[in-house]
């Protein structure tokens, strides 16, 4: 063996991700979530607690007709605005309406809008983003240019303007919000698809004759599921905050309909007065919901890919 003849020991089959964990075979590329995912999710305590909280919250709000102690518009003018008491756990507003009841009914709107916007924008955004990422060229350019345009304008301003034009009913709000949100989703999905597209198993699938849509459906998207789901979850939070902000400014949900943001708008004038308690509860509701959704999203992210910590 001459020193001028560098020789190398042939490596065995490709190994796992790090030098410290040899012996792991290359991951099966098409790996749907599976057992370990649920195990990891269950172990993420904030996420589990959050999921429970969200379910309870949603159930309470949508069961309001049955659960709420009073009717949503039931006034008690003689009582007026009183602080939290035995009869009215969260107090009443100036018309004597029970805050807790109003909070539950308003929650229906806020949650509904949040969920609907997230689902709609995720659906549209995923389709467009995947198409742009996988097909590339014209579709991709079109997507990027269009989203570039909207990313340059401040979101709330555009939303407020659009709502002024198209109306303030629930469906319009959902559509308008989704019309902006899908762009963020599309960009994220596109980036994911681009990354996955470069993997060798995609080339292998193509080489064995699979068609584009088939590949996207069976190989590309399953590997993007993680970021898509996580993003969708966070979109719920973002949508709730967006709707609240718009309603607070007066451009979102309008009276007589109500949402948590709208309730805060109504309570704004009570800062510094003895009715300041009207401020706390709608804000707390938003905070709690968004916090829970964020924790859940965090837990999902960890469960999908613990390495991304």
């Amino acid at each position: 063996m001459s020193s001028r003849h560098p020789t190398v020991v042939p490596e065995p089959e490709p190994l796992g991700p790090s030098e410290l964990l040899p012996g792991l075979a290359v991951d099966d590329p098409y790996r749907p979530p599976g057992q370990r995912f649920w195990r990891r999710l269950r172990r993420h305590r904030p996420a589990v607690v959050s999921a429970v909280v969200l379910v309870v919250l949603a159930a309470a709000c949508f069961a309001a007709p049955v659960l709420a102690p009073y009717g949503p518009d039931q006034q008690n003018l003689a009582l007026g605005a009183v602080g939290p008491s035995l009869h009215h756990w969260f107090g009443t507003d100036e018309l004597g309406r029970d805050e807790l009841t109003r909070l539950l009914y308003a929650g229906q709107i806020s949650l509904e809008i949040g969920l609907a916007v997230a689902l709609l924008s995720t659906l549209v955004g995923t389709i467009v983003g995947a198409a742009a990422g996988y097909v590339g060229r014209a579709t991709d350019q079109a997507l990027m240019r269009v989203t570039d345009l909207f990313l340059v304008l401040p979101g709330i301003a555009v939303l407020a303007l659009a709502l002024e034009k198209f109306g303030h009913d629930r469906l319009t709000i959902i559509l308008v919000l989704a019309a902006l949100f899908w762009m963020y989703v599309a960009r994220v999905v596109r980036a994911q698809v681009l990354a996955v597209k470069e993997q060798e198993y995609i080339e292998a699938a193509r080489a064995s004759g699979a068609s584009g849509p088939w590949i996207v459906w069976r190989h590309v998207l399953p590997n993007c599921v993680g970021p898509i789901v996580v993003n969708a979850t966070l979109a719920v939070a973002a949508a709730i905050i967006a709707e609240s902000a718009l309603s607070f400014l007066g451009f979102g949900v309008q009276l007589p309909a109500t949402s948590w943001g709208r309730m805060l708008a109504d309570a704004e004038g009570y800062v510094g007065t003895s009715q300041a308690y009207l401020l706390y509860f709608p804000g707390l509701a938003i905070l709690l919901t968004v916090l829970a959704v964020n924790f859940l999203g965090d837990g999902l992210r960890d469960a999908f890919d613990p390495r991304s910590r």
Partner: protein
Amino acid sequence: MTGPLLAVEHLSVEFPTDDGVLHAVDDLSFEVGEHEVLGVVGESGSGKTVTALAILGLLPPRAQIRGSVRFRGAELLERPERDLERLRGDDLAIVFQDALAAFNPVLTVGDQVDEAIAVHHPEIRGPSRRDRVLALLDLVGIPDPASRADQYPHQYSGGMRQRAMLAMALANDPALLIADEPTTALDVTLQAQVFDVLERIRERTGTAVLLITHDLGVIAGLADRVVVLYAGRRVETAPVDTLFAASRHPYTLGLLASLPRLDHRARGTPLFRIEGQPPSLVHRPTGCAFHPRCPFRAVPEPCATLVPPELEVGAAHSSACHRVDALADVTPASLRAAAG
């Protein structure tokens, strides 16, 4: 000073993982003498890098380390960080495998080499340090050191970067240089360059080298003695010529047999490879870690049940194998013949 420069005794490193305890290094012992080159051979995952990091005290806190590492007679494990900082980069230096990742991308190469000097010898002033930096770059064969020193790591070619890392490690004339896979990330021509530099350094400065690699060619050319690792344990140790000529361990023999031969007699013969996969360091095989892949195994007794002790088989030559007597006449060639 008597005794070896570096003495590692019964070193064990374990990591807690989700799936169990990972045994990266298991009861490893070896010595490096002054001016000596000790080669450490093994596949990825055999614990080579972990050993190097353990010596320098650079393992993460969750690593469980047992045993003893003595440098110039003084114990290194459990030493306060400040003492280790004084040693690192001065008397005890290391070069890593991936030079691109190992250099800070936002500082010039010259700055980083300069830092190695400045940290240990603040009494040397700027201009003299600069001279030393240029001299070091020149020593490792980097052309036009003056302008190269002001460039960033990404502007260097792969081979130059590796050599620049060597320059940085040698900045303070270390007594021991640990080279962790110095040629692995490079192609053959660059490997030869780095190899040349290492040879030159050896001749010039007589630095002792702990050469960690899976490249047997580099070992053959540079090492005085060799230690072979498998699954975190030492399986054979011998002077370099003895190892290549008369190895007495199935793993080492397998490694040697796997080397592609380019002479005409080998034409048409299939490449030899060791059966199976390297074992999981979390769920190690019982007994000898190599036995599932060993053509000479005696199962179940004793290979699958007893960890083989290291037995002396020659002058400064020992092997950890239960079947060591049966291997007296086995050569890489006979292994290849038996398989093909």
